[in-house]
């Protein structure tokens, strides 16, 4: 099976944070953004919203940093797997991750890291704008191109439309 990925397009994100609710609810049955494995970073003064989560790196710094092999790369699915039983809570992975994709859950003393919800990521499922999409990794560029092309088509259509008088 082809590897999948979460395709994140920040310019489509409106910052509603439904992804955070869906993520925490899926994992803990509580709506609790502080324990979500995806976080929308908001720059309110500029109107920017950026969903940040684990990118499941191929050559993952967190895997390299983990002294107990609690984190390891599953070559087949592409997921960086977290085994809580092996984790000693040293937080090296949080330090090592260049994206802030790994967090700390104070309630269970374990890390917060995306596990793709077992193959049906709830963040992508709930996202109302398409800012988070669950796509085949080898087709992600197609998806992105298509989104950009759609937007360009809209611009082109607007250019072709007759302008209202006086505007």
């Amino acid at each position: 099976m082809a590897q999948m990925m979460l395709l994140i397009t920040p310019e489509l994100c409106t910052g509603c944070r439904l992804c955070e609710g869906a993520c925490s609810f899926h994992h803990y049955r509580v709506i609790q953004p502080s324990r979500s494995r995806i976080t929308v970073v908001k720059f309110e003064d500029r109107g920017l919203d950026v969903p940040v989560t684990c990118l499941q790196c191929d050559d993952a710094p967190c895997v390299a940093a983990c002294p107990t092999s609690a984190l390891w790369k599953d070559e087949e699915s592409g997921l960086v797997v977290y085994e809580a039983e092996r984790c000693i809570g040293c937080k090296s992975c949080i330090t090592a991750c260049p994206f802030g994709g790994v967090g700390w859950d104070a309630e269970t003393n374990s890390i917060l890291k995306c596990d793709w919800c077992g193959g049906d990521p709830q963040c992508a499922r709930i996202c109302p704008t398409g800012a988070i999409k669950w796509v085949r990794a080898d087709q992600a560029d197609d998806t992105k191109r298509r989104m950009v092309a759609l937007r360009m088509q809209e611009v082109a259509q607007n250019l072709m439309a007759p302008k209202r008088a006086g505007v």
Partner: protein
Amino acid sequence: MVELGGYAGRYLRVDLSAGKIWVRETPKELIRNYLGGLGFAVKILWDEVDEHTDPLGPDNRLVISTGPLTGTMFPAAGRYQVNAKSPLTGIWGHANAGGFFGPELKFAGYDFIVIQGRAERPIYLVIDDDLVELRDASHLWGEERNGRFYGGKTTFETIQMIREELGDETFKVAAIGPAGENTVRFASIINDLGNAAGRTGMGAVMGSKRLKAIAVRGSRGVRVAKPELFMEVVDDAYRKLLVDWGDALKETLTKYGTPNLVEAINAMGRMPVKNHWTGYWEKAHLIGGERIREEFRVKQASCFGCLVQCKYLVRSRKEPYAGIYKGPEYEALVSFGSSLLVEDVEAVFYANHLADLYGMDSISLGMTIAWAMESWEHGLLTKEDTGGLDLSWGNAEAMVELVKKTAFREGFGNVIAEGSKRASEIVGRGTERFAMHVKGNEISAQDGRAHQSSGLTHATAARGADHLTSLSCLEERGYEQVAAERYGADKVKDLVDPQSTRYKGWLVWDLEMLYALGNSLIICWYEVGWPPVFYYPDMARAVAAATGIAEFGDPNEVKRIAKRIAILRRMFNVREGLRRKDDTLPERFLKEPMPTGPAKGHVCRLDEMLDDYYEAAGIDKETGVPKDETLRELGLGELAGRWR
């Protein structure tokens, strides 16, 4: 303590005079009888405030409340309520705002906050889960020297500075600006850079208490009683919004935001123009949704957990208005645009932005300036009064200048800061007839001459002329199917006819209860009011699954609670001395036929609807006081017979 879903189970009481803070359990009776949000506040303000309370005195209570659905996955449950006796109207006051502050308060583990007293010096309140403290805000507060007001950080500056002080950008902050500090009577509270709890001067109440801001960060989250069932309810709600109403939303609110209303409402001749003189403007497209989308919109935005996503940002490149701003809502486009005949939409963006920065309600502010411009037109105000400002219709520069002066109570701004009713009494000379208010609150962007039931809404709403209390969009947008399902096919013809007064009293009362329920749960008006997606059964199902309280699952029971809330809110005003005579409109709506546009020739036939409204609500038609039997039926028997 029994674990209830949806609620945090505790609340905060803050006495600013004593500098004390208490954490208390949310009373079960309060939950059972008043549900949350607006309901909580109605009960608390009924008990703790009375007709002798000075709205700007230490005895007034500021109640900031969430509901059982706040912060859950139910769509658009990201709002919170701010409630107090209003310094603008002297009666019931509340405002409601979106963004992210409300959910964060719930996540921190509190259903509501009651704030009383007055701090000795400016302070702000920090809530970080269990850590709650008052901090010095002197550096954020302005000062008065030689009768002039200096400094006072804007709402945006305050929010950012507090976040820096606390070392975390994710604190959600609700703050007042200079206008709140100066107790401008329609001062607002702004949270998350641009969400406003705007109406009835809640920011002035905060200012009178010397409370500059409330910062909150919460990690606890919200539990629901029946997670699987609740998620089913949420899925159904999503389906209703995205599938059943999906096409309608995609082409309106989601695409344009509320500016979409400008063209539509103008086409029915109901968009206030020139201080409510008429309801149609041939230049409406200049401030309309199409134009804003094509020329200025740069980004869509959203409140917490919303699928409608009506918020947006605009960019102006024209000096002196250049910048990126929260896009104005329909109401602000009217109050700074068509109401003043200001054609320059970029000036409207800027005025609306300044209203947010300084913390003022864009509706009351714009409509009070409209009063001044009409008084100017009739020669009742001159440059001597205005300090040299030329208040001719359409003067965008003067509007912007007056917005600034009002926040700082400078010159003529000190008169505008009192709101149209008081301002017209201060000036006198017959300018009273141009003050478009009901009960002291400026009339929002509807007109009862073009949409009869909106006149009834303005006349009867508890916080004064307001649309969100009970406005019907059935006739506004022609929702025949909804009208038939809810009220019966035989009534559809009248219900969707804006000029028919038949059944409208009953309709407005039904919606007053429905929106009281929405404001108690709390879910957004843009899925309950327009479009009319959720009705009593949907809300009952959601709140029962969230809380685990079986009785809430009965639509008749939640409707009874909603009625209790609406009636006790009315009793608050009755206690203040309001009676039937106060449920009225300015003469302009009752006696001056609409001069132009599609509704030309019509007046608002308020009397034809009022009796029906009172009858539907169980209110005495002579006095306007809820009947004894109504009070008893709602468990409010102890109030019976005390007010006539």
